């Protein structure tokens, strides 16, 4: 049966690998060294791993355990490479970026903050609006409905942008960086992720609680701490590194 390598995290070569750590499929998590870096991997039987609850939790448990052990950057779920050489090639290709990410966020954590509207605006014209629309020709009715929809979305977006400013004002003093989205879906005003020094998490959580209590019109959700998934360098395009030989140390 063929064996592939599922990759969890990138660490420095001398980072400790926890004995007994089990990966997806139950195999041991091992290190593949490549120069100054190491990839934490485990053998899997399939080239594609479905994002089931079990698999996602196992991925996260391994990434968290490694992150607690020392600086590391998390690899995206589902990263399966054909063999150890392919892992070395891939790490070598991104060595500079990975070194930079490790130095910048390897020992940091992130916390997620989601602000939801307490009351969902369903966007109906209401009884009066419906009555008003009934007297109009179908084309006019359609255009008027579209206009109202756009106006409602613009208002929501403006309110959500204000909420993001309030969140950043309250929380950014306790964080290093933030990634956020305004109105990612109609029910959510803002989704944000803050990069935090581990020693400041308590202060951040207290600031969040004050913010939450001061926003009764919202439902505020705090998640984490997570490994710094959202702050690694974003992927910049396809990179198939097929048969190129690995240029790195043994491992």
């Amino acid at each position, binding site marked *: 049966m063929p064996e592939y390598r599922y990759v969890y995290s990138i660490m420095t070569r001398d980072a400790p690998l926890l004995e007994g750590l*089990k990966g997806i499929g*139950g195999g041991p998590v091992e290190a593949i060294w490549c120069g100054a870096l190491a990839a934490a991997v485990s053998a899997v039987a399939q080239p594609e791993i479905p994002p089931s609850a079990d698999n996602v939790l196992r991925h*996260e448990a391994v990434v968290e355990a490694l992150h607690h052990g020392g600086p590391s950057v998390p690899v*995206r779920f589902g*990263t399966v490479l054909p063999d150890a050489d392919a892992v070395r090639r891939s790490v070598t290709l991104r060595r500079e970026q990975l070194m930079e990410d490790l130095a910048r966020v390897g020992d940091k954590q992130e916390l997620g903050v*989601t602000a939801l509207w307490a009351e969902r605006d369903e966007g109906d014209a209401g009884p009066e609006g419906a009555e008003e629309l009934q007297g109009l020709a179908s084309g006019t009715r359609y255009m008027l409905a579209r206009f109202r929809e756009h106006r409602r979305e613009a208002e929501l977006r403006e309110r959500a942008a204000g909420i993001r400013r309030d969140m950043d004002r309250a929380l950014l003093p306790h964080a290093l960086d933030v990634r956020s989205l305004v109105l990612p879906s109609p029910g959510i005003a803002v989704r944000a992720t803050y990069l935090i020094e581990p020693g400041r998490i308590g202060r951040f959580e207290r600031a969040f609680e004050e913010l939450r209590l001061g926003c009764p019109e919202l*439902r505020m*959700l705090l*998640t984490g701490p997570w490994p710094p998934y959202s702050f690694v360098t974003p992927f910049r395009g396809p990179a198939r590194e097929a048969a190129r030989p690995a240029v790195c140390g043994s491992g």
Partner: protein
Amino acid sequence: MRTATAETTDVTLLDLLDRVVDHGVVLAGDITISVADVDLIYLGLRAVLTSVERARELDLVALPGSTEGALDA
């Protein structure tokens, strides 16, 4: 937060799913994982979620294949 609820576990999973599938280091350029219709169903919640490690301490999440988690040693 000692009482595990299906709702809290679902929310933990959805937030985690969003992170691990959409973010993190990309080592292979052709990975595409589609998680259709994962709308965030946070409505009605004021839960404070935790990392998997913390969730295990709180008995919110049972890791697959073992009640003891990823570290079997």
